[in-house]
């Protein structure tokens, strides 16, 4: 009799956990679906790095993105500063399940190098953002679990835990706050491999483009373990810019960096 109770308990637990997983996945999919159809975008970025002593350092970049449906997005980033690396550019073909393809252009040598996309957890340009924090957010990259609804920044949010599928990720889990109305991201907590809180990313100064594409004007990443901070400021967003595959070729990568 006791055993039967246990079995019922296990089954119920199994059902509920799978339904939480289901709801989490649905939210993640809804967020992607909500933003679908931007086709391509361009934006200028300013990155402000702040160390523990509060000293600031600025970087300028340009980004272009091409939306793809069957596969992950393509993106090209050009660094305009620091000046000693100005013209350095990266081209990334994101894939939903296999590793991303990535090329680096070094303007001094006029050299395009295919680089490993293996090192996801490493810092991007000495900042608090890891490469994986900035890569295209594909549904397939995580498993999900819905946690709860709660109010954050005065809006109601859906809180979802997502666990990276890739063993090379620097995180055991991330807790994501989705805006309940438009699925835009409000906040992400990142937990390191030892499952302690490593970083928090907050999104602010949102603007909406073409009535549905919500983009944050600022993203601030705070590292709780080192006290360092990186703020990304996005300016001059443009969507449906007419960019196509040819604008994401190795020749385009060379041209973008001169």
């Amino acid at each position, binding site marked *: 009799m006791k055993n039967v109770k246990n079995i019922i308990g296990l089954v119920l637990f199994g059902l509920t956990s799978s339904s939480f997983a289901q709801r989490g996945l649905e939210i993640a999919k809804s967020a992607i679906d909500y933003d679908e159809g931007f086709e391509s975008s361009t934006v200028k970025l300013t990155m402000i*790095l702040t*160390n523990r002593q509060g000293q600031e*350092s*600025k970087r300028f970049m340009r980004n272009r993105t091409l939306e793809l449906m069957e596969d992950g997005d393509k993106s090209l980033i050009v660094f305009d*500063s*620091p*000046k*000693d*690396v*100005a013209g350095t550019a990266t081209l990334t073909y994101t894939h939903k399940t296999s*590793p991303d*393809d990535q090329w680096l252009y070094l303007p001094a*040598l*006029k*050299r*395009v*190098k*295919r*680089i*490993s996309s*293996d*090192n996801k*957890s*490493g*810092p991007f340009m*000495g900042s608090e953002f890891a490469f994986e924090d900035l890569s295209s957010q594909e549904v397939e990259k995580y498993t999900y679990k819905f946690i709860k609804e709660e109010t954050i920044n005065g809006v109601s949010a859906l809180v979802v835990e997502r666990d990276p599928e890739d063993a090379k990720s*620097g995180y055991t889990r991330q807790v994501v706050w989705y805006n309940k109305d438009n699925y835009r991201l409000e906040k992400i907590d990142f937990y*390191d491999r030892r499952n302690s809180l490593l970083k928090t990313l907050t999104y602010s100064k949102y603007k909406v483009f073409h009535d549905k594409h919500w983009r944050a004007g600022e993203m601030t990443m705070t590292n709780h373990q080192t006290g360092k901070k990186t703020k990304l400021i996005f300016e001059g967003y443009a969507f449906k810019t007419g960019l*196509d595959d*040819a604008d994401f*070729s*190795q*020749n385009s990568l060379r*041209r973008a960096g*001169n």
Partner: protein
Amino acid sequence: MIRKLFKNFFLLTALLSAGTSFSQEKEKPEYSAEIEVDNLYFFEEGLYGGQHRNYLSFSITPDVFIEWKDGKQSLKVTGFLRVDQFDKNRTHTDIRELYWQTVSDNWELSIGVKKIFWGVTESVHLVDIINQTDYVESFDGEQKLGQTMVHWSYMANFGTFDIFYLPYFRKAQFPGEQGRLRTPFLLKRDEIDIDPKSKEFYPSYAGRWSHYAGVFDFGVSYFHGIGREPIFQNLDDLTNFSISYPIIDQTGLDIQATTGPILWKFETVIRKSAVQDLTAFAGGIEYTFGNIKNSGLDIGIVAEYLYDDRGKYAWSGLNNDLFSGVRFAFNDISDTQFLIGGIVDLSRSTKLFSVEGSRRLGESWKGTIESRLLKTVSDEEFTYFLRGDSFLKFSLSKFL
């Protein structure tokens, strides 16, 4: 000499400003420049007359880029000036780039002076042949002279096709009498002939097909024209040798496979000419341990085997050599990096050790350190002439 140099430089400045007026209602031109001071110190006295222990020098690399018609057309100009304390040949100017480019959906056309890089390996660049090496500028041959060309690049869904018409050949410049890293006899630029006899206006042609598929990136290239490396004959007899630039046909292949943290690299060339044939290859791996202990530090291990069948006194001493190196990239705010490596000759006694490091200072300065140590250099190779030239170089650059 110096006056001629500055005259050239003013000419370049005039070109730069001509480029600016070209733009008019177009988008704003982007100017930048690097100003560098370096100090080159040799651990030993020079083996040949007139050489010094320590050389101070200064260089400036101005750059202008203008684009118009939504980036469909552009003009790029990069100049270069170096003034060396002692070596008259190292004091030189060059137009690194001066080209106009027009871009369509699937092709681009460039006309003018340009720099092109091909290849994948780290320790040698075998397939890279379009530009002449600036021998007075760098020990590792990574600095190049600008090359005049018409370059057409076509992108198909089965790869990129590059076709080059190279109307003018540039002879290499070598260190002068007071310079280090030279041969005991002076190699005089204008006295090294093209063989069969020809002017520098001898058209060379090149083509390359490059593509990528999954983990593979590859390129197949062909070059016909004046070889960039001069060929020595009879160098056993220092009083009766000859040196010339041959007409060559060179086929090259470069492949890289990118599998997780490992890059597999391979390059090979087959070169034919009336006086000397060459088969050379280089192959190896680069393995990166990324973000070690979450410190941001990447440690990369590079190992490459180098082969060249030319034998004694070939332009390259890398006949049967092993390169290995460790690259440290701290990925910090100053972009600190180091490469420590060595090339060991497996059939001769020569060993070359090197350290290269750099770090950004503040927002727009950069410090660089480079050292090359030559040990037990075999007298059966060209490097023997440089056996006393182990050096340490510091440079400081300001970016404008």
